């Protein structure tokens, strides 16, 4: 027997012997364990530590907020605050849920809430939420179960702000500090932290003393960080995970074809647009309104939605607000796809032979960002707008966005919280990454931010939308969907448009 064959046979034998030993381990946990795969490991499990949804989803299973925005009812509902009523246009009385304790035994009461607000208001400890905190004037304890919150001015998204305040136990906080709390949080939630192996898994066990009904059929939740899309889909398909976030569109049909798997499609708060900078400091043909309108006419959004998103994205109607939002204008319709009109507008603006422009886009920040950008560039080219494409890694993209360097044209998706002011404030000239400067727009945005009468407020936002339609500071593209792979054994899993989902009322049938 030759040396080659002998070696080959020995290796093959070794491999055959080893494989069965290896298999079987690392399989999905069965029984009453829920395994959730997200893109990233949490940086901190203290929800007010960051605004990243991966952190919040995990942290919120342990630490709870005053109120919550229920995605199933689309209403703001009680959480640790049982009921609330406005006292004046800038103060609110909160009645706390009674008899709730943190898992370390501390009581959840007015002192704990006042302490949590104190942390929330300190930009050194809670820089991520300083924008909300800026509206709060002071918080006073009335009795053990009642507090009153005062804002500095009439504040329309008052309740939404209260959904952002997470309640922590004061004594424990004092003993471990902010960083310690983020690593070993103590809360009132349905789960408590058992084990956290960094970048590998976060394990939480059921809180037996949970004040509410809590999840059914689940004793343990395991959070797994899986950054690669293909790997996350694969792990979900094979049953390693019961829930997987950010499923790529290309994988949806395959998953739905399986008997025990499905994909939940949630319209996202994320609105996709092209920045068309009209700032003086950004010299480009886009300064001319007609060129910006031409860009809008040149993009076939319907084709993008139909082909690249398989219909799983929604058209914008020439405005940035969604149909469900206050201030949506049903009278507005989007710019139709009309390359001839685009060419005519370009010629009118002095570019009869078309023009060349830099087009920046992120690579790996949004689903299919490269593909969509390339498709848009192809469509623009047909109308005579030749683009020089610049792909940016996600970190650099964000940095440029916030330093107003994402100009003259860039592909962007913004997902502000569910209040029209948070959407529109992004186009106020003073906003860090506003690529438009328009005094009329600024005045309307300010008016909307202070108006507490709903009808009047809606009218203001309709005016804003019509102004933006005319001035086109952006090209209106589409609204995205978020896709969650969810095991059919899991009921009551309802994600929200800001990529948040909640475990306190789900049911696992196994």
């Amino acid at each position, binding site marked *: 027997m030759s040396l080659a064959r002998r070696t080959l046979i020995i290796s093959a034998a070794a491999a055959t012997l080893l494989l069965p030993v290896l298999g079987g381990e690392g399989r999905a946990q069965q029984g009453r364990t829920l395994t959730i795969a997200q893109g990233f490991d949490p940086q901190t499990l203290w929800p007010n530590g960051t605004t990243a949804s991966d952190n919040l989803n995990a942290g919120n299973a342990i630490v709870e907020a005053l109120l919550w925005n229920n995605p199933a009812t689309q209403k703001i509902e009680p959480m640790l605050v049982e009921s609330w009523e406005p006292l004046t246009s800038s103060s609110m009385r909160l009645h706390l849920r009674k008899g709730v304790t943190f898992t370390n035994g501390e009581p959840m009461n007015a002192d704990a809430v006042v302490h949590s607000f104190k942390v929330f208001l300190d930009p050194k400890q809670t820089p991520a939420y300083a924008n909300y905190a800026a509206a709060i004037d002071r918080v006073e304890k009335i009795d053990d179960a009642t507090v009153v919150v005062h804002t500095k001015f009439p504040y329309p998204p008052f309740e939404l702000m209260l959904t952002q305040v997470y309640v922590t136990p004061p004594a424990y906080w004092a003993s471990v500090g902010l960083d310690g709390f983020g690593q070993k949080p103590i809360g009132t939630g349905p789960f408590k932290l058992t084990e956290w192996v960094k970048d590998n898994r976060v394990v939480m066990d059921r809180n037996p003393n949970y004040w509410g009904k809590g999840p059914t059929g689940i004793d343990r939740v395991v959070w797994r960080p899986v950054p690669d*899309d*293909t790997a996350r889909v694969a792990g979900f398909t094979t049953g390693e995970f019961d829930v997987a976030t950010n499923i*790529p569109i*290309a*994988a949806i049909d*395959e998953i739905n074809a399986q008997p025990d798997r499905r994909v939940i499609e949630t319209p996202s708060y994320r609105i996709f647009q092209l920045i068309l900078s009209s700032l003086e400091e950004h010299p480009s043909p886009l300064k001319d309104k007609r060129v910006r309108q031409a860009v809008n006419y040149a993009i076939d959004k319907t*084709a*993008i939605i*139909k*082909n*690249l998103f398989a219909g799983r994205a929604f058209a914008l109607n020439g405005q940035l607000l969604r149909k469900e939002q206050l201030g949506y204008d049903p009278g507005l319709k989007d710019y139709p796809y009309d390359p001839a009109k685009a060419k005519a507008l370009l010629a009118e603006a002095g570019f009869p032979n078309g023009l060349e422009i830099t087009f920046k886009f*992120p*690579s*790996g920040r949004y689903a299919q960002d*490269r*593909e969509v*950008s*390339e*498709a848009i*560039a*192809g469509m623009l080219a047909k109308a005579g707008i030749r683009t020089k*494409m*610049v*792909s*940016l*890694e*996600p*970190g*650099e993209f964000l940095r440029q966005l916030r330093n107003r360097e994402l100009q003259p044209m860039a592909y962007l998706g913004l997902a502000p919280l569910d209040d029209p002011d948070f959407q529109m404030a992004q186009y106020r000239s003073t906003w860090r990454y506003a690529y438009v400067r328009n005094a009329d727009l600024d005045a309307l945005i300010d008016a909307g931010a202070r108006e507490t009468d709903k009808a009047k407020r809606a009218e203001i936002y309709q005016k804003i939308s019509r102004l933006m339609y005319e001035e086109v500071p952006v090209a209106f593209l589409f609204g995205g969907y978020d896709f969650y792979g969810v095991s059919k054994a899991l009921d009551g899993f309802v994600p929200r448009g800001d990529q948040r989902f909640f475990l306190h009322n789900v049911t696992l049938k196994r």
Partner: protein
Amino acid sequence: MADAALPSTARSTPESRLRHVVRGTLAGWPARISLLILALALACALAPEWIAPRDGYAQDLALRLLPPAWSEKGVAGYWLGTDQLGRDTLSRIVEGTRITLLVSLFAVLVSGLAGVAAGLAAGFYGGKIDAVILRLIDIQLAFPLILLVIAVVAVVGPSLTNLVLVMGLSGWPRFARIVRGSVLTVRHLEFVDAARAIGASRGRVMALHILPNILSAIIVYASFEVARMILLEATLSFLGLGVQPPTPTWGGMISDGRKYLNQSWAVSLSPGIAIALVILAINIFGDALRDALDPQLDERL
């Protein structure tokens, strides 16, 4: 003259030596096939518009992710099917040859020039210069390559020139080490001493006497480096730092297409096969070239 100083081939004239090398290189059939593949790749790089069956940039969203023409749902004329934007995959592979080869060849050129210069200086002058260059080599080798490339590309932006420079920067230490080693071995050979004795300047000695003697080592090593650079560009594309779209590169196509593997394997596998073929060809050709040039040359290169 310089040629007379070539130790191993002192007897032969340049032409007969060239003929000898060519004949030696092409002695086996694997080398011949490799040469054919490389010639084809070169033709694609030089005149893609004559070879590509369609316009590799033309999008048709209605025809996206078509399978190859021979399969059941294939469409005639799209031989390898279409990509995620409905562009012809075969045409893009042909188009992509140009930038893929351009980037990798120039990156090797950059690292080769820098590395050879540093290696020559270190080996020839020795002493402090040698010590400094050795430390620089160590720094570069110890610095995680990917981190360096990501950081630099993120800072200066992913233009073609920057990409070539950064990729080139990553390869120079290996050239420098090989050259330095070779210089050290030939430095004290008689012909170098003789040249110095008759008053040739250091630069002249290096250019005319030392460089020709280590050229074969450099050429062979460079051929392997080209393959490495093609892969590096692919990895950078995977991390979103490669050549800018819509310009096709093989690495970029694999990286974009891998997301659609379950819908169309051809999108990402066909450029992958192109890469594999060319790298295989380069390696086999490089091996043959080495054997023909100088059988003593170390295969560790």
